[in-house]
């Protein structure tokens, strides 16, 4: 397909074919108040040189030399040039949905490998070919639980990523799904006793995140037992996939919804990322999105096909399992390549570095008078600190030292004023952690 605009004569032909005289006449059904009666405010045509100059000038506006301690669902991790070089091959970069296995073996095998890796990491039996991102994967997981149980209530941990909760609430509005929230305790973990009371015979799913939004690990086996006691399903969300290098996989969960950005995808402006849904094999027919399967061809050779495609929207239309199951094939491929480059031991070592650096940072910050850890539960590469004054004010001062400070939690959690979420990954040099501690100490020494 060539992306060329239509010429005036082609437009006239098209208008004549549908029986209208002008573009004006074509749009008469749109009320005048909703029509744009001036040209779009766009720059005029530029020459190639002018365009290059324009983008060089914009690129020069980028800040550089800052050290960031932000995480909260999007993480800075090392990425290999190998990943970008491979995914930019035309066969992958411009390929479309592999409906025809006879011409798509490479793409299908790549998806199959991705699914296999996701199963191994999450401790589940089956994973799909990927979802839009972690938040939509989580929402689809809850809708799946609603279909599987025939129940219409989801009990959600308050420590689930607030933006994931927003996405879930948006979907819930039109599918008769009631959402109830369970608070966290001083450990930062979900209040298990409150959860036990809240779960009832109408509960489709208990939804938790681990490590949760505060970076604290949840006790997944215990939570599964609480959900299962009332025949509800346990949905576990994971936003920091690197944690799976050392954290026990949530094998007790019925559905795992994960953001795979940490596996080789740049934070960019918040996307494109890659969502993952993994579950038990017995639930596979309620799993949204597509699934690649291994089979044999007429000569008995190994091959790959789209499996269970009969439940997808191109065949089932409005009765499809999901109509919002956008597959992020290229991002999934990047994640698969990234994981293969790291290997099992590499991923473990990477996770250990994250843990060690975050522990070091937590200890350094805790030495500063007036600064303390907000939650006592075990954490991975993020933790919440409590400061003696507003995090936003402190951050403004840190920025002067080219440090992007902790995420202020008060916007998401009014009860957590003066608390900030700190993220430390393998990309944060020890010297920068020490510089954050020194800078913070100085700022807090000064009178407000």
């Amino acid at each position, binding site marked *: 397909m060539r992306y060329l605009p239509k010429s005036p004569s082609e437009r006239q032909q098209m208008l004549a074919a549908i029986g209208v005289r002008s573009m004006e006449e074509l749009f008469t059904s749109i009320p005048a108040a909703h029509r744009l009666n001036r040209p779009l405010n766009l720059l005029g045509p530029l020459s190639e040189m002018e365009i290059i100059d324009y983008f060089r000038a914009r690129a020069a506006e980028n800040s550089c030399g800052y050290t960031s301690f932000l995480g909260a669902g999007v993480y800075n991790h090392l990425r290999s040039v190998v990943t970008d070089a491979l995914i930019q091959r035309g066969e992958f970069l411009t390929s479309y949905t592999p409906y025809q296995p006879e011409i798509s073996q490479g793409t299908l095998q790549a998806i199959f490998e991705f699914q296999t890796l996701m199963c191994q990491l999450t401790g589940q039996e089956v994973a799909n070919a990927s979802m839009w991102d972690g938040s939509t994967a989580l929402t689809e997981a809850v809708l799946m639980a609603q279909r599987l149980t*025939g129940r219409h209530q989801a009990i959600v941990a308050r420590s689930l990523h607030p933006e994931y909760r927003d996405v879930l609430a948006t979907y819930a509005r039109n599918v008769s799904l009631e959402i109830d929230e369970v608070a966290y305790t001083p450990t930062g973990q979900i209040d298990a006793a409150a959860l036990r009371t809240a779960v009832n015979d109408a509960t489709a799913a208990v939804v938790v995140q681990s490590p949760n939004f505060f970076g604290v690990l949840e006790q997944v086996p215990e939570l599964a037992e609480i959900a299962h006691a009332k025949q509800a399903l346990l949905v576990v969300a994971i936003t920091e996939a690197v944690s799976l290098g050392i954290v026990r996989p949530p094998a007790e969960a019925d559905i795992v919804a994960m953001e795979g950005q940490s596996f080789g995808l740049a934070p960019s402006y918040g996307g494109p990322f890659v969502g993952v849904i993994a579950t038990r094999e017995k639930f596979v*027919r309620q799993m949204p999105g597509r699934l690649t399967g291994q089979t044999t061809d007429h000569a008995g050779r190994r091959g790959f096909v789209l499996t269970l495609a*009969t*439940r997808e929207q191109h*065949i*089932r239309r409005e*009765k499809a399992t999901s109509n919002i199951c956008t597959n992020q094939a290229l991002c999934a491929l990047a994640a698969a390549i990234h994981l293969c480059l790291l290997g099992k031991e590499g991923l473990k070592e990477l996770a250990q570095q994250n843990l060690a650096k975050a522990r070091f940072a937590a200890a350094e910050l805790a030495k500063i008078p007036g600064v303390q850890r907000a939650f006592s539960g075990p954490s991975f590469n993020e933790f919440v600190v409590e400061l003696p004054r507003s995090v936003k004010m402190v951050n403004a001062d840190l920025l002067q030292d080219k440090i992007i400070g902790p995420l202020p939690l008060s916007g998401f959690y009014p009860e957590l004023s003066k608390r900030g979420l700190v993220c430390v990954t393998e990309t944060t040099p020890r010297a920068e952690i020490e510089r954050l501690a020194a800078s913070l100490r100085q700022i807090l020494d000064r009178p407000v």
Partner: protein
Amino acid sequence: MYPSNYRYTKEHEWIRIENGIGTVGITDYAQHELGDVVFVELPKAGAKLSAGQSFGTVESVKAVSEIYSPVSGEVLETNTSLANEPEKINKDPHGAAWLIKLKIANAAELNTLMDAAAYQTYISEKQKEAAH
């Protein structure tokens, strides 16, 4: 081919009545159109269905199709053997591969369904259409 004591729907389900209990399945024509059946999804006993309501799905290698209840009633029993042997639907659609048993709510609804002769005519017209 099509038992004369059964009644049939335009969506290709059949129903057989014994002592106020209706047994429901899909017709030989339907299984043939679907091809090899690989999965059947059925309601739970106790589910209340109205005439024409979808109560499950039959999945073949080609498609997933809804199954509709010929009449209103309450589900008394489902054919659990189909979970492990969905291919029974291809082998014996009018017998061993029944799907659900219904306690019929309104026997008058049966009069709206086709008898075997009418159904035969209906599907031969379908086949003619398909041939054109």
